[in-house]
């Protein structure tokens, strides 16, 4: 009898104890002898140049070791490409303290290093900077006039597909039309842990770096290129990351500054950003969508046009997949999609949880709701009517797509059939009740990843790969996969990740880590199994003498005949028989190129939202979200559910709260703190019901996994906005839907 495998079962996090006892160490928490502390001085203007920096007062503070500015910084690599990290978009990467040029407000202009953090912070306040300000632009509504198609595409980001059919003509002839503009505000990632780096000066030119990063190899490569160091001398170790959501994909400026100072001072240095400095680098770009849908009277789509403009900096073309989803989610013969960038005097935006998708899908799924209204059709029926069986952007079948089942299961759980169609028709007490839905979609990907597995004669197994766990549960699912490979309890498995000395792994992002690192760990374990099995067969009197690997099972620390589980040999016994103290293998798992050519792979979701609006008090609550997710195999329903819940909470933030407001006269973000940049808190979040739809997928990854990190947020804001329309009759196309917008009618000109 085989025991229930760990994979597929709800298991508690293996790093749980470390996290609830305070033992888990994050980047700013590693001690080092003689540690010095750096504090960043942030620039005050949006564009121009520094005409003078006076550091005299700062330098005079006892305990200050050095004040670094563009005038005295150590030399770094000359060429731009040396400053490009693994995931840099096309352009010329920002170089901290490079010269007197100011590219955006909040740019670091000096680093004060002192014996302790309080002294560094105080001395930083004494640095005086003179500027010559130039004319700046931070308003996307003005800069949109100069939007352009990015000349060089960003690696990994598909530009919009070529038009199919004739969307303009089909739209002109369509009996039903929806045309509107949908906007999403700038958002900042704001992980709870602020970006930080501790550089430990090991002597002999060697550095150990603890960085807040979603891929230790990206930090390592960047440091080596910029400072001309060799990989042997730089080890990046980041076992725990206090959230990142994309802000830790690219090395941020605190890494550069900490390493620069450590090399110059030949001692250990830590740089921690402040919360307001967390608003001085990555963010989700403000984005404008124009969508036009044309349909027959029965709601069948005839034409889809979707054009988006995203903000970027003046030095890099940050690109996202914003509009492609509109050619994908529904069957339609006439589709034209466009994506442009507009430059502002801001830092380059960055990927933020499901980059692009929730922006474009908000627009499309709001427009679909408007179309359902016009056609007098239930929004769910409209979606089922226009269901796409294949990826019409690429003309390929899907590896799997259970979106139809997701709609059905979600609708049943939510009770969608009880919805009364007319806006403002559902009420309870003094509150208007609204029900809305939307679809979600995200690309399912796998990336080449290597992993090592080591089985030792004490019956312990260690698996290792350089990847990260930013709260996603990587440690836990890797332990599950590894334990199952040998029929071991999870307690016998040690998972090591977040260390650049471990086998190669890409950054943790794009929802690909479980599929990629999971497949690599499984491959490494299987290689160990083969060696072990040879030893087992060779053992004297082995009951497995004539068996081959396909006919045995690994159960309870034993290798047994699948057909006769009473006959077998213990793992440790087998190792002894082979004279092996340890069996170690490294393997690389790669996506199947042939499958990638033939098939498209996406995760899907159906999101149902209930809102309650008290119009007199202007109070809005999201009282229930049901999200049905089709994402292939679910390795751990417990951590998977948490992942999706987290995404849904982000969708709520996007819908109702998150917005970094700029004062365009100063070219500066105004609400750069957690009191004024609102994220959902406990009281904002009510019932969230996650359904995992049964979906078999053997083509996306060897372990059947499609990924879950992003899908929870995609479509959620649209479902909420649609519910708000159903409750109040107000269609708000500008996220976040704050109370002022709800109380006033949105400006008519936005609904062309």
């Amino acid at each position, binding site marked *: 009898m085989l025991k229930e495998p760990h994979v597929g079962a709800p298991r508690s996090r293996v790093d749980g104890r470390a996290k609830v006892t305070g033992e888990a160490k994050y980047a700013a928490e590693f001690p080092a002898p003689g540690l010095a502390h750096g504090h960043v001085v942030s620039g005050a203007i949006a564009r121009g140049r520094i005409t003078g920096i006076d550091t005299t007062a700062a330098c005079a503070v006892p305990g200050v070791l050095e004040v670094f500015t563009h005038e005295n910084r150590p030399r770094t690599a000359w060429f731009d490409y040396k400053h490009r990290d693994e995931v840099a978009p096309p352009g010329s990467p920002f170089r901290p303290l490079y010269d007197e040029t100011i590219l955006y407000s909040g740019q670091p202009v000096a680093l004060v290093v002192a014996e*302790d953090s309080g002294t560094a912070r105080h001395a930083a306040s004494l640095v005086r900077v003179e500027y010559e300000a130039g004319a700046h632009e931070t308003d996307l509504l003005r800069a949109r006039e100069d939007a352009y198609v990015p000349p060089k595409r960003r690696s990994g980001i598909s530009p919009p597909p070529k038009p199919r059919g004739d969307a303009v003509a089909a739209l002109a002839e369509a009996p039903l039309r929806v045309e509107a503009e949908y906007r999403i505000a700038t958002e900042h990632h704001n992980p709870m*842990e602020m970006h930080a780096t501790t550089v430990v000066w090991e002597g002999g030119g060697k550095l150990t770096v603890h960085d807040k990063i979603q891929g230790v190899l990206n930090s390592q490569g960047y440091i080596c290129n910029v400072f001309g160091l060799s990989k042997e001398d730089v080890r990046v170790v980041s076992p725990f990351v206090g*959230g990142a959501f994309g802000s830790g994909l690219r090395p941020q400026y605190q890494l550069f500054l900490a390493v620069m100072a450590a090399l110059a001072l030949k001692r250990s240095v830590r740089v921690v950003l402040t*919360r307001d400095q967390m608003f001085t680098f990555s963010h989700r770009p403000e984005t404008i969508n124009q969508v036009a849908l044309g349909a027959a009277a029965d709601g069948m789509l005839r034409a889809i046009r979707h054009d988006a403009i995203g903000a970027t900096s003046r030095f890099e073309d940050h690109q996202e997949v914003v509009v492609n989803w509109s050619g994908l989610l529904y069957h339609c013969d006439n589709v034209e999609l466009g994506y442009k960038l507009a430059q502002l005097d801001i830092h380059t935006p960055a990927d933020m949880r499901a980059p692009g998708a929730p922006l474009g899908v908000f627009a499309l799924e709001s427009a679909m709701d408007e179309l359902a209204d016009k056609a007098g059709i239930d929004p769910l029926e409209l979606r089922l009517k226009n269901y796409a069986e294949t990826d019409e952007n690429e003309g390929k079948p899907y590896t799997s797509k259970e979106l139809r089942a997701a709609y059905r299961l979600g609708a049943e759980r939510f009770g969608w059939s009880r919805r009364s169609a007319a806006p403002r028709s559902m009420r309870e007490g003094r509150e208007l009740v609204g029900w809305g839905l939307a679809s979600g979609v995200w690309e399912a990907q796998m990336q080449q990843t290597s992993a090592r597995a080591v089985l030792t004669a004490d019956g312990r197994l260690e698996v290792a790969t350089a990847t990260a766990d930013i709260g996603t*549960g990587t440690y836990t699912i890797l332990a599950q996969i590894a334990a199952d490979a040998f029929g071991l309890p999870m307690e016998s498995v040690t998972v090591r990740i977040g260390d650049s000395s471990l086998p190669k792994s890409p950054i943790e992002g794009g929802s690909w880590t479980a599929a990629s690192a999971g497949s690599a760990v499984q491959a490494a374990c299987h290689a160990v199994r083969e060696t072990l099995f040879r030893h087992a067969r060779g053992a004297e009197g082995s009951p497995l003498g004539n068996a081959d690997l396909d006919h045995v099972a690994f159960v309870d620390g034993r290798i047994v005949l699948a057909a006769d589980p009473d006959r077998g040999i213990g793992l440790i016994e087998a190792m002894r028989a082979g004279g092996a103290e340890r069996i170690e293998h490294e393997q690389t798992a790669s996506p199947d190129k042939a499958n990638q050519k033939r098939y498209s792979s996406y995760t899907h979701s159906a999101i149902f939202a209930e809102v309650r609006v008290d119009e007199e008090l202007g109070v809005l609550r999201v009282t229930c979200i049901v999200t049905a997710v089709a994402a292939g195999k679910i390795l751990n329903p417990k951590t998977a559910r948490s992942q999706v*819940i987290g995404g849904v909470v982000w969708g709520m933030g996007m819908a109702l709260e998150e917005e970094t407001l700029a004062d365009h006269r100063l070219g500066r973000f105004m609400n750069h703190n957690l009191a004024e940049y609102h994220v959902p808190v406990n*009281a904002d979040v009510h019932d969230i019901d996650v359904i995992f739809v049964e979906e078999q997928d053997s083509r996306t990854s060897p372990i059947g996994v499609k990924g879950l990190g992003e899908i929870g947020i995609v479509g959620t804001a649209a479902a909420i906005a649609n519910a708000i329309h159903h409750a109040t009759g107000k269609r708000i196309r500008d996220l976040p839907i704050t109370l002022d917008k709800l109380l006033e009618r949105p400006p008519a000109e936005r609904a062309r």
Partner: protein
Amino acid sequence: MPTQATPQAEPDRVTITLTVNGKPRSLALEPWTTLLDLLREELGLTGTKKGCDHGQCGACTVLLDGRRVNSCLALAVMQDGASVTTIEGLAAADGTLHPMQTAFIEQDAFQCGYCTPGQICSAIALLEEDHAQNPDEIRELMSGNICRCGAYPNIVAAIEQVMASGGEPAP
């Protein structure tokens, strides 16, 4: 290069006694040191987190004489004679976890874990305060602790689990 300043006298330090996780300590502190910086930087108790340093996120929540406070807003020298319990001080000496710690693991009430020490301290004090009788009240009274990973439903479930068991370790 900074001028080699002639060594000045250390700014006046203030000596206080503080019981930290059950151990009395005598500490000579710069008067502007926050309780949070004292814990993290001087005592090496990095389990208490800094998420904003402005009283806006709750990551730094500790138990001060049993009450929950944002340690980033508390000046250390004002706590003379007080007793502080941090996340490191919750488990029993033999390593047995506090029921709230166990419940957080069982309910998967965290992801990245960075807000977690603050959430757990806050939740323990919440039960002590005895104002929250239902999930809505738990949500309201736990809203000073931001979780950017969005673990809120599971945090509420963990607190309910401990409430239901009367604070006893789950069976």
